[in-house]
């Protein structure tokens, strides 16, 4: 009985994808619609004969775009195996060939023929001038490509891969294709761009001259001139990594190893950096410590000192990034410090070690993975940070801003941007590698499930005094800075007219009535709504891709699983600036032409934040016993049904955590976004950067404050829905990244 039903579902899936392929080929417009992916004006505007909106079949019938004709063969082929049994070798061979060749042809023609005919010289040489061109792929091409992909995976499954499980094979195939398209392809495009000369030719010499540029590697700062951006970035990132790890550890110790009363308040601190738009801290620092900042003026009057511009440059960026990223280190370390099993420490004390010795020789070494992770996070975040160096950088050039100005500046040098981005990527991947080496294969597991009672000892006294002092000072400083942010949004013109006013909020968020109804007249509404929409669109997709990947990684074994895991986690180590640059280089021209749309923003967020979804999913899924899946499978469900009906419902907290995290990240991201925004899709963060550049600090800060409160309520809502379990989980996955 059961066998028949499986065969039937297999058949209906096959029919579905064959039909989808034909629908994409014969019914939907093959090329991208200029008015936007979701506009349907084409239905009434010359469809199906008009060249811009015609499906591929109609184009071929009119003898246009004849290079699409070969696609008919792989679309026809699967029809002949409908009657065959799955176990028949012809069945699988036909599907693999049809799917594989169809997909390959689709890609080949997409890259081979662009908006100026053949994209490569040798094609012109072989076939002569084409005399025709094509634009980016649209619905039709997308659907046909998907159909080919899933026909191919069904063929593979029919050959017996992963027990012939169509769902798992298709999921693996799908994830591989989208990661290849949206992570690897742009990076490769960028690497290639680094070798392009002004005239559009390829040359190693160009790369070499740009790579060994003095502005990148110069060591002038040792004799009064300036150092190269690469050294600056590296030095800054190492400092930020060390300091944030140290401060994070201090806070983690206060929360877990002391009788401190306001632990919950300290924990609340951890959400701050996640919900803070990236350059607000820089602004607050200028208002406090700039040449005419409140503190500067106060101190210089008190001591009669000459105020200086010390803030602009390394010190300013360092302070701002430390403020911004310390809570992230804290988030990582608190889980680790809690995770060190008390029984180990008790054992040490029983052996007559005093508290200090216990801490130094037992607790601290066991925290090594956490320390390494925290350092790595601080390092990468600092490397990728864009907002703070932009506001506070002075003449201290760092890679992320240099990349930006190589692309947007009057020099407009994409290949220089690509070279800089490669250096940046090299630094972060090296850090990633060293972290792995340092941790090595040692075992840090102390919580074993066997008798694990006991409480953590308090900190040794020798440690507790400096720890409390540092935590107190830094905590107070953080509160002052954030207080400044709120206060600054109500001040009319900072430093000149310090009267309190709602002016900035009114300019940004005023709402009026006109004869057409409600009119969102505030200057910020456009970007605000776009941001909410893009973030809301990206969040569930991120969670979905992340969780499916996590399911594959925890529940299935297949060849190349390690490479698969590395590929899906790679985008975590790629700084946003690099993503931004590589996306413009890759997606501004056919076959995938999505710059200037909302889609590219959504896509960039999905792949920026996907690793978090993956980690959240893995963390929760490893807590679900495999026997649950097995019983579901034994009872006759297939793996899709098991995933949907058994695993998904149990993953609710992880799903919600991933949803909120990616939503919030999408609202505060700047480094990739700044390259990808367009007239129609301006995001809040890039709008605020524009205001900052325009000396409009009041409006920028008011907008940022609003964003902070919006996101705070989103996070609070989540806490309310999921309860405290969510924090535990987030800590857990954070320590595992």
């Amino acid at each position: 009985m059961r066998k028949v039903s499986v065969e039937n579902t297999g058949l209906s899936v096959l029919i579905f994808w064959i039909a989808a392929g034909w629908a994409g080929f014969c019914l939907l417009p093959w090329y991208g619609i200029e008015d936007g992916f979701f506009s349907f004006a084409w239905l009434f505007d010359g469809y199906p004969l008009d060249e811009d909106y015609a499906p591929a079949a109609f184009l071929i019938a009119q003898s246009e775009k004849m290079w699409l004709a070969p696609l008919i063969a792989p679309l026809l082929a699967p029809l002949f195996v409908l009657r065959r049994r799955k176990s028949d070798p012809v069945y699988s061979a036909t599907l693999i060939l049809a799917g594989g060749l169809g997909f390959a042809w689709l890609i080949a023609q997409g890259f081979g023929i662009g908006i100026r005919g053949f994209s490569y010289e040798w094609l012109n040489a072989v076939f002569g001038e084409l005399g025709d061109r094509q634009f980016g792929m649209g619905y039709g091409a997308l659907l046909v490509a998907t159909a080919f992909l899933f026909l191919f995976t069904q063929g593979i499954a029919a050959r017996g891969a992963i027990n012939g499980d169509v769902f798992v094979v298709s999921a693996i195939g799908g994830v591989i294709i989208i990661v290849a398209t949206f992570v690897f392809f742009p990076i490769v495009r960028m690497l290639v761009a680094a070798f392009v000369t002004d005239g559009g030719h390829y040359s190693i010499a160009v790369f070499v001259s740009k790579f060994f540029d003095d502005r990148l590697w110069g060591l002038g700062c040792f004799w009064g001139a300036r150092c190269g951006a690469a050294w600056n970035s590296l030095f800054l990132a190492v400092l930020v990594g060390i300091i944030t790890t140290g401060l994070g550890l201090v806070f983690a110790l206060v929360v877990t190893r002391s009788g401190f009363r306001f632990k919950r308040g300290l924990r609340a601190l951890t959400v701050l950096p996640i919900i803070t738009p990236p350059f607000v801290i820089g602004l607050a620092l200028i208002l406090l410590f700039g040449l005419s900042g409140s503190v500067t003026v106060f101190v210089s009057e008190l001591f009669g000192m000459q105020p200086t511009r010390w803030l602009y440059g390394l010190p300013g960026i360092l302070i701002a990034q430390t403020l911004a990223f310390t809570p992230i280190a804290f988030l990582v370390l608190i889980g680790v410090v809690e995770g060190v099993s008390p029984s180990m420490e008790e054992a040490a004390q029983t052996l007559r070690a005093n508290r200090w010795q216990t801490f130094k020789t037992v607790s601290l070494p066991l925290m090594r993975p956490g320390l390494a992770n925290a350092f790595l996070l601080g390092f990468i975040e600092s490397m990728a940070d864009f907002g703070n160096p932009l506001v506070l950088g002075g003449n201290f050039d760092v890679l992320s801003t240099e990349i930006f100005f190589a692309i947007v500046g009057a020099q407009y040098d994409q290949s220089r941007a690509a070279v800089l981005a490669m250096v940046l990527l090299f630094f972060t991947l090296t850090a990633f590698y060293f972290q792995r080496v340092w941790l090595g294969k040692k075992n840090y597991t102390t919580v074993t499930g066997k008798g694990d009672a006991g409480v953590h000892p308090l900190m040794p006294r020798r440690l507790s005094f400096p720890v409390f002092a540092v935590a107190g000072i830094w905590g107070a400083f953080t509160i002052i800075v954030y207080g400044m942010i709120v206060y600054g949004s109500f001040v009319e013109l900072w430093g000149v007219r310090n009267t309190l006013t709602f002016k900035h909020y009114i300019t940004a968020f005023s709402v009026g009535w006109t004869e057409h109804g409600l009119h969102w007249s505030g200057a910020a509404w456009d970007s605000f709504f776009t941001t909410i929409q893009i973030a809301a669109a990206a969040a569930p997709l991120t969670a979905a891709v992340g969780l499916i990947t996590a399911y594959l990684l925890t529940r299935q074994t297949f060849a190349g699983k390690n490479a698969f895991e590395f590929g899906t986690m790679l985008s975590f180590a790629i700084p946003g600036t690099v993503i931004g640059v590589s996306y413009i280089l890759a997606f501004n021209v056919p076959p995938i032409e999505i710059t200037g749309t909302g889609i590219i923003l959504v896509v960039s967020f999905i792949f920026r934040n996907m690793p978090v979804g993956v980690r959240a999913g893995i963390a929760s899924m490893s807590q679900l016993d495999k026997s649950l899946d097995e019983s579901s499978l034994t009872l006759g469900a297939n793996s899709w049904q098991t995933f949907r009906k058994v695993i998904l419902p149990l993953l609710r907290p992880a799903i919600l955590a991933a949803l909120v995290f990616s939503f919030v990240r999408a609202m505060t991201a700047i480094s990739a976004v700044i390259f990808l925004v367009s007239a129609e899709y301006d995001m809040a963060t890039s709008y605020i950067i524009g205001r900052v550049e325009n000396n409009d600090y009041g409006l920028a800060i008011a907008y940022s404050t609003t964003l902070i409160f919006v996101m705070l309520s989103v996070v609070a809502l989540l806490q309310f829905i999921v309860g405290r379990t969510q924090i535990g989980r987030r800590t857990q996955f954070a320590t595992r990244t």
Partner: protein
Amino acid sequence: MKSIKFAFGISLFAFAAATGSAHADKMTLYCSAQEDWCQLMARSFEEATGIDVNMTRKSSGETFAQIRAESANPKGDVWWGGTGDPHLQAAEEDLTQEYVSPMRDQLHDWAISQAESAGNRTIGIYSGALGYGYNTDLASANNLPEPSCWKDLLKPEYKGHVQMANPNSSGTAYTTLASMVQIFGEDEGFEFMKGLHANINQYTKSGSAPIKAAGRGENTIGIVFMHDAVKQAVSGFPIKVVAPCEGTGYEIGSMSIIDGARNLDEAKKFYDWALSPEAQNLALEVNAFQVPSNKNSETSPSAPDMSQIKLIDYDFAKYGSSDERKRLLQKWDEEVSTLPQ
């Protein structure tokens, strides 16, 4: 599960709303003037014609880069505002297209000659002279003498008090460099830039940032276009504007239609409208103190009086060309920016 499905539904809806809206009459405007002016131009044009305007504001350098990047597949229609050099460069590289507006006979001569030098691919919409402004509070707090000439800025007492933008990223700063070369001759001009380099505390990325920093009290002297300095003074910051005694260069803020514009008819409508006195008078509402190109437009009483300023005969064709620009920038990079400060 329900909440997840709900979230998915919401997101699909948001996605649909975010990624597409069909409209009959629309155009895309790349704007390189200040944000509020750009906003006002876009909104007023919508009101005047009913054509929807998608506006992005980016500096002229950024916009030029964007237009060049998109040249295979142009997304914008009109590029309005920003200093003239990148417009001329775009014209030179055939990134913009020829158009002779019926409004042309109402314009000042400098606007028309700007158009003619670029084969009618661009046109002047406003002009402004280069100069500098200083924060009077900070100057007196530091006992600095009042500067009145370019050469004054080389005095050692101004060390660490002068700011200008980086000519690589800012059209304003490139105009400064080109003006110095024209006022003093190339060799002496570069000597001037070297001397100035010793006093500069920061090369900012954007052109008007130095005077904004001076307004906030984060810097003393900012080398900028005078109308930007006037704007800070009018907004209440303690800024004094200086027209340097040796004479000075100027910019012609320009407008061009992008080659291959997808909404050419709307683009031409905007172009004509932007040259009309009604459109140019909008500048006054947002404290933009440039001199408008239409003879019938009003000028603000606070605007610097162009007839009182000693203007040099700025060679737009030569110094706007990509080759000359590249050569000067490279020379500046190699000979000036690497010097110790």
